[in-house]
């Protein structure tokens, strides 16, 4: 069990769906980079050897019965974290795009914020987007920066650290719809009174899978991102009251664990 000073007990959550080829290496790399920190792989209804490879690499594996999407997998992960007395959860993708060596920088920033985004930087590495996808990301960043009252450049990054105040909120309200795990989750965090911040993080090219560059896909992305943002803005989230209640209940639940 990891007992890291920044952010309390830390759990790394790796949502994985049919990632048999890279999940083992990703878990091993995280364990090497962050000794003493627990790694939870949430298997999102994979039909391949993801579960076995993750277990062999030394991760705790949560097997979902069927595919729930990234948001559903993360919510399961957050609930596991809360029930087992972790204070902080960090999402790391199974495809190896996120560098686990960057995790301590995210955790360090948790002193000032409740949700820390590892923001991908354009230009200085292989991670680049353009066209409609880029415009969508710029507009999203502008709007959410305004809401969070802090400059955020990359609001669709999956590389995020969730601190002790935001964890109970996410465990209950983490959005499961398309793009909700990035855009809507930030809006919920802000509405619940959590502070959001970002640190620059280096992204690596995917070891598997392909990014979408086709114009039609980019157009659909633009539309869905805009719609997701509008939904996030008009939807009612009575989270602040519940969050306070949960915060009181959270540690008790963790303490009850043997």
């Amino acid at each position, binding site marked *: 069990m990891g007992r890291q000073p920044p952010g309390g007990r830390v759990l790394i959550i790796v949502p994985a769906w049919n990632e048999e080829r890279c999940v083992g290496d990703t878990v091993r790399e995280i364990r090497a980079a962050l000794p003493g920190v627990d790694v939870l792989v949430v298997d999102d209804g994979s039909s391949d050897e993801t579960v076995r490879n993750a277990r062999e690499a030394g991760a705790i594996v949560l097997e979902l*019965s*069927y595919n729930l999407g990234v948001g559903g997998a993360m919510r399961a992960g957050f609930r596991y974290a809360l029930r087992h007395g972790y204070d902080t959860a960090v999402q790391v993708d199974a495809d190896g795009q996120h560098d686990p060596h960057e995790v301590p920088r995210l955790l360090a920033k948790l002193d000032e914020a409740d949700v820390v985004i590892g923001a991908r930087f354009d230009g200085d590495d292989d991670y680049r987007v353009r066209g409609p996808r880029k415009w969508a990301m710029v507009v999203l960043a502008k709007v959410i920066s305004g809401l969070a009252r802090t400059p955020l450049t990359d609001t669709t990054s999956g590389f995020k650290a969730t601190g002790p105040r935001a964890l109970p909120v996410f465990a209950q309200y983490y959005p499961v719809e398309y793009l909700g795990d990035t855009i809507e989750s930030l809006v919920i965090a802000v509405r619940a009174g959590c502070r959001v911040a970002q640190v620059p993080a280096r992204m690596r090219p995917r070891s598997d899978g392909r990014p979408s560059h086709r114009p039609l896909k980019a157009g659909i992305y633009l539309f869905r991102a805009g*719609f997701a943002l509008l*939904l996030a803005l008009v939807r*009612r989230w009575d989270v602040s009251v519940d969050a306070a209640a949960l915060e009181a209940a959270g540690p008790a639940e963790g303490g009850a664990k043997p």
Partner: protein
Amino acid sequence: MSSYLVGLVGSLLVLAGIFELLRRRQLSEKYAVLWLVVGVVVLVLTIFPNLLTALSRATGVALPVNLLFFVAIIFLVCVALHLSWELSRVENETRKLAEDLAILRLELDEHKRQGRHDHG
């Protein structure tokens, strides 16, 4: 004129209903898009009734209202089909959950029994 007003108020009410359901998080994104599109189309057709007439002329339908009925029936059949499909999927998923739960129960029982043996 009054039928125009009734149509307008009706479609606005439908749109408001969809929006409110969305806002209260009672409607998920995939259904929301569909119903919003329908609501907007109905609203546009009520505001510009000539649009329907022009469309029916273009498609060779004698009565504009028949075009409306035709499209509406096609749409409703598609919705019914989609819902059946979703329901089949949900059924499959609950079955899977029940199976997994049964397996977990058995495993938990075995664990408990083993624990008792070890202690006793």
